[in-house]
């Protein structure tokens, strides 16, 4: 692997020695089967946005059912056909399919591929100072596996038995038995194929991210000088690499149970008038395997968003991020702990209660590094000089969601309290805020912030502001009321609650939630318009429109293949020299040596000047290889 990486790298490097040389290829090699990390990032972004639109629309459809249970949805018949029952309601089985697909799409296709895929690809080479990813070819494969995976999942939406309907967690036996629910037939088969391909894509990408970060940092870019985005992408990739194979294993065993008569997860089942031959399997085993990925997945989704936010908040507060080391440390701690908390999803599944105690302990520990991160964000804002760019506002929104949603984890992580709240709307509120909305805001913030580097133009800030306020208020209106509904005990994944006297209330809150969801979805069209309009007609951006310090802003307005014309810049300082006392401007890019900034250097930094002089052999990453 290592030799292959170096070889690819050498080639690109040589190409770019002819400074103004550009890669000439045809349309297919430039835009479709491109090996350039920036193009691949845009492919991930556009695909992710398409999925987000689908996932969001699905959620609005089932919110219509929950918010307006009496309304006729006959007008959806042209789209949904037979899934609208004769009396104009959504079929209750299709409702579950909608919920399942919304979850799968949002967690995996939007917030894993769309977020990590976009920003890890785009930012890692640009921020560590590399010409491209370690393996451009693997990177391309990563996207196309994701694309293939998307095709399977998309196809499953249109088959006659409907897509998978057993919840995004696909717990067997429900997901294994087509007798139990229609979606567990062909729909589930497509789901499993799609996820298998998706995992391949994630692993190919993850290996590349890790390799690139470790091996291809430019001269002077030591680990302690890396921007927090890169740290976040690094931990994310490591977590993904360790946990996704477990889901692959679980999916494979489920395929065996479904198609080849094994009994890994099935036992003692009597359904549709017959006893099945399976004995000895355990549905709990699947839950352990699933959540061994499933919980780290939460951080796979969240950490990149936190990294992006760290960068944007520091840049737009014109302040160094507070407690850089604590930020890295807390991310590392979260990454490690994310592997030992999975069973807090299973307190009341019949798992040994002693395990419940252990996982309560480990789960609540994870609140400490999370709290540290929030304190650090807030302190970064303190005494800043804050510019409310759209990206900045979405980042502040992320911190707010991370706080609101994260703090309810104290209830759910405590097994005794979780008994009542488990699988109620309280859980729905919790994870939609802390992982769904927070990560989504991180992704949107990232798009606003790095759009100038992606497309060479600015997005419209006023539309961005409107988009932010509608979405921010909208998301709170959607998920905050769910806490009350959850405390009242309303179970999730319910098509209707009117069967129960206990849950026969809150029609008002449910309607509010649905209306807010519809408005929030429509607000996203402002973003889509802004995005596509600005690609072609946006104001032209300067090379460094935000006055940021990191390496990507030292590239030309539209970086070509290879990113920097001429030499890759050398890094001399950390990424957060904002508003340094004595400095002429309120930021000093990482490429400015201390020898050029005697007026602002701290005492220990003056000593580094000597090292800079002998830089030729001091910190070598790139040059040595050639």
């Amino acid at each position, binding site marked *: 692997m290592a030799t292959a990486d170096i070889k690819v790298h050498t080639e690109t490097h040589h190409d770019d020695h002819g400074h103004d040389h550009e890669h000439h290829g045809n349309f297919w090699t430039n835009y479709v089967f491109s090996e350039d990390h920036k193009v691949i990032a845009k492919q991930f972004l556009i695909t992710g946005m398409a999925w987000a639109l689908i996932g969001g629309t699905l959620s609005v459809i089932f919110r219509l059912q929950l918010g307006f249970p009496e309304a006729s949805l006959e007008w959806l018949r042209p789209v949904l056909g037979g899934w609208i029952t004769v009396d104009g309601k959504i079929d*209750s*089985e299709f409702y*579950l399919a909608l919920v399942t697909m919304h979850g799968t799409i949002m967690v995996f296709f939007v917030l894993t591929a769309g977020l990590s895929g976009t920003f890890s690809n785009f930012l890692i080479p640009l921020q560590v100072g590399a010409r491209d990813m370690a393996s451009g070819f693997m990177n391309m494969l990563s996207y196309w596996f994701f694309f293939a995976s998307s095709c399977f999942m998309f196809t499953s939406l249109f088959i006659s038995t409907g897509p998978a309907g057993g919840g995004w967690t696909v*717990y067997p*036996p429900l997901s294994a*038995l087509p007798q139990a629910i229609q979606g567990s037939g062909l729909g589930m088969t497509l789901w499993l194929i799609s996820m298998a391909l998706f995992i391949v894509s994630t692993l190919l990408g993850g290996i590349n991210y890790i390799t690139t970060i470790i091996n291809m940092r430019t001269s002077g870019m030591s680990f302690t000088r890396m921007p927090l985005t890169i740290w976040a992408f690094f931990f994310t990739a490591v977590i993904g690499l360790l946990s996704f194979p477990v889901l692959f294993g679980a999916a494979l065993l489920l395929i065996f149970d479904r198609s080849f008569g094994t009994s890994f997860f*099935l*036992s*003692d*089942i*009597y*359904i549709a008038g017959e006893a099945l031959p399976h004995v000895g*399997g355990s*549905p*709990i085993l699947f839950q352990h395997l699933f959540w061994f990925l499933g919980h780290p997945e939460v951080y796979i989704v969240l950490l990149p968003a936190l990294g992006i936010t760290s960068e944007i908040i520091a840049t737009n507060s*014109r302040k160094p991020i*507070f*407690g*850089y080391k604590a930020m890295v440390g807390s991310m590392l701690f979260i990454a490690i702990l994310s592997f030992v908390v999975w069973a807090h999803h299973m307190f*009341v*599944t019949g798992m040994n*209660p002693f395990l419940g*105690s252990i996982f309560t*302990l480990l789960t*609540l520990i994870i*609140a400490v590094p999370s*709290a*540290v991160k929030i*304190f650090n964000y807030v302190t970064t804002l*303190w*005494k*800043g*000089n*804050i*510019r*409310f760019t759209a990206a900045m*506002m979405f980042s502040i929104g992320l911190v707010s969601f991370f*706080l*609101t949603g994260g703090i309810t984890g*104290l*209830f759910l992580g*405590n*097994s*005794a*309290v979780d*008994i*009542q709240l*488990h*699988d109620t709307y309280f859980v729905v509120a919790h994870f939609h805020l802390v992982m769904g909305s927070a990560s989504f805001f991180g992704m949107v913030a990232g798009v606003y912030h790095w759009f100038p580097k992606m497309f060479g133009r600015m997005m*419209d*800030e*006023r539309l961005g502001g409107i988009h932010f306020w509608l979405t921010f208020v909208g998301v709170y209106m959607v998920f905050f009321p769910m806490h*009350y509904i959850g405390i*009242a*005990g309303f*179970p*999730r994944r319910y098509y209707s609650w009117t*069967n129960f006297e*206990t849950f026969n209330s809150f029609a008002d809150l449910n309607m509010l939630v649905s209306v807010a969801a519809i408005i929030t979805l429509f607000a996203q069209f402002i973003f889509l318009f802004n995005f596509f309009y600005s690609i072609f007609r946006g104001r032209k951006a300067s090379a460094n429109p935000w006055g940021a310090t990191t390496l990507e802003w030292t590239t030309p307005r539209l970086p070509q293949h290879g990113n920097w014309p001429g030499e890759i810049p050398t890094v001399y300082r950390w990424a957060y020299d904002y*508003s340094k006392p004595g400095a002429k401007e309120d930021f000093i890019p990482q490429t400015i040596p201390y020898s050029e900034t005697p007026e602002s250097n701290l005492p220990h930094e003056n000593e580094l000047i000597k090292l800079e002089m002998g830089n030729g052999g001091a910190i070598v990453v790139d040059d040595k290889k050639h």
Partner: protein
Amino acid sequence: MNLIIGIGVVLILAIVFMIFRITNLVGLVKSDKEAVSSGNGIHAFLMMAFMVLSLSGFFWYSYVHFDSYTLPVASEHGMITDHLFWVTMVICVVAFAVISIAMFWFTYKYQYREGQKAAYLVDNHMLEIIWTLIPAVVMALLIFRGLRVWNEITGPATKEAINIELVGQQFYWTVRYPGASDENLGKFDFRLIDPINEFGLDLTDKNSFDDFKADALYLPVDQEVLLKIRAKDVLHSVFLPHFRVKMDAVPGMLTTFKFKPTKTTEQMRTETGNPKFNYEMACTEICGKGHFSMKFSVVVVSQAEYQKWRASQDSWLKLNPGYMKMVPENLREYALIRSGMEPDNGSAEQGVLKSVSNR
């Protein structure tokens, strides 16, 4: 009609777009030299306004509608977990409010101003240690309290506990009691399930003879109950919201939950002022099309009423005498006695046996 609406929407969108274009062009004509957009102050103000409005809305709704989102509690451990819930709530709301106010206040106070320079604040170890320790200590207290409660709830049931079996299937519950006189539920096997023997009762086990099926979950007040939970087809989950009880029903694995109801249905009717109040059981693990409709009635009665009710129930075997043929020869007489079919009357016995052989 639809066409008119369609044209209307298109026209509105076109007008919005024109406004956008014009303001955009005006913006281009004006200088782009400003470091921040003119909206900066507006956004700073909106941040503060959002914080004040949303926090007051939160406190107002939580106070005014307290009764509508809190369920009355009717079990012993439920009172303890509820207490822990509210302790956690107080801690969380305080932390949430303080941090939210600080954050939005900072965004407002430190909004961009011409010539203002941000502080170069890299870190502060003392501060960081303090705010790592505070959550750690609070967490430790919550964990300590939570685990003690959890261990009590999940600990073994006492000998006096009544055993009741709950079986989940698509899309209803069945409940089995261990008979009028003992606490032993008979064995079962999923291979023995058929349309009538819905529990899959194993009639070679003596304990199964007097087991009976009930149409609701009858519980005696102030008496420990041990639910033995299983599922026939897919995962289900027993949820008794008023008793703060939740436990999955898993095919192939027995799960249990023990609790003690503290209020009868009648007491709850008085307490809630709702004469139609009924306890209910729901399913909280996605199980298919009818997941939302798995309602089962729960009735809590006084211990005397419970004993009376229990004694009045006919055993499953008595109601389905055809299954006598499943009982081993040497146990048949005993089965007749235990199931409540008159054994001393020879003709009755013969009648039963005849009906068995006729099947």
